[in-house]
């Protein structure tokens, strides 16, 4: 008798998502109006807009992980990435567009974390769309004031001798953290190392995965 009561649950026991039966907001109407005018005037097409959305959706932290794993395994690329991260990423086929990218490296003595206090600047070309918390007022305001507490809430507790460097992405640069390569990964291939690199480890709110959690590759025969 699933329909007798519990109106907020579906027959399979999941909560219903309420219908969004409310009028469009001012900005939603504005977006639709401008999009339709641009299409009507021949400035762009619906297909171009869809293609751009597909491009944005196709970006994921896997792109960044590929870059980091190469930096861990290729000393020349590592140096190039720290020198000019835009050019180094572009050389791997990850076009940064007009934005400039800076890579900051975690070491035994330094831990870097990225924030954008003014809005939500984020290295989308390498990491895809930012997580909601990255855009929250709490993350944006607290990370510059009490980064160690914020990091601890993400499960990253740093010893006192480690300096925390917060990077506030205020203007034209975007940032990516190069996490420290985990111990016990000697002789690992770049492909296998990339599996250790999480999105949060490239924002600085996380660390790479424990190498023990990644299955051994099958012996090649």
């Amino acid at each position, binding site marked *: 008798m699933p329909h007798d009561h519990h109106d907020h649950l579906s027959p399979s026991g999941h909560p219903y998502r309420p219908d969004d039966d409310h009028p469009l907001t001012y900005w939603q109407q504005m977006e639709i109006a401008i999009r339709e005018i641009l299409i009507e005037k021949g400035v762009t097409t619906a297909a171009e807009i869809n293609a751009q959305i597909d491009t944005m959706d196709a970006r994921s932290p896997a792109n960044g992980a590929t870059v980091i794993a190469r930096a861990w395994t290729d000393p020349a690329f590592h140096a190039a990435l720290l020198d000019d991260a835009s050019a180094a990423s572009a050389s791997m086929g990850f076009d940064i567009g007009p934005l400039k990218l800076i890579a900051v490296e975690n070491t035994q003595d330094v831990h870097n974390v990225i924030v954008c206090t003014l809005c939500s600047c984020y290295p989308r070309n390498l990491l895809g769309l930012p997580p909601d918390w990255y855009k929250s007022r709490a993350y944006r305001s607290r990370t*510059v004031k009490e980064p160690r507490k914020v990091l601890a809430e993400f499960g990253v507790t740093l010893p006192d001798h480690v300096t*925390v460097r*917060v990077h506030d992405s*205020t203007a034209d640069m975007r940032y990516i953290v190069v996490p420290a390569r985990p111990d016990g990964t000697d002789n690992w291939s770049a492909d296998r190392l990339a599996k250790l690199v999480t999105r949060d480890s490239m924002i600085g709110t996380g660390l790479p995965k424990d190498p023990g959690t990644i299955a051994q590759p099958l012996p090649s025969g």
Partner: protein
Amino acid sequence: MSDRCYMRVATHMPPGHVRTPAYLRGKVGWVERKLGPFPNPEQLAYGLTAETARLMRVRFTMAEVWGPQAECPDDTIDAEIYAHWLEPTDPPHAT
């Protein structure tokens, strides 16, 4: 470090699209690296012809930004600040 180039961030609070965060205004940091030039976003945001502006990455200590409330005085905040917001200054006095 005597070769550090120290800068003070301007304290004014103009309206409009400004990329200098309020919490850093009036604070002293040193130039971590020079960037740019970029078209000035304060003009670009309004569709004006933007002059090119030099951008600096300035590093501040938590002690400088938050004073005695700093969570850990030697931790740092780096931010990108346009040169027209910066004025060369002496290093902060050692405590």
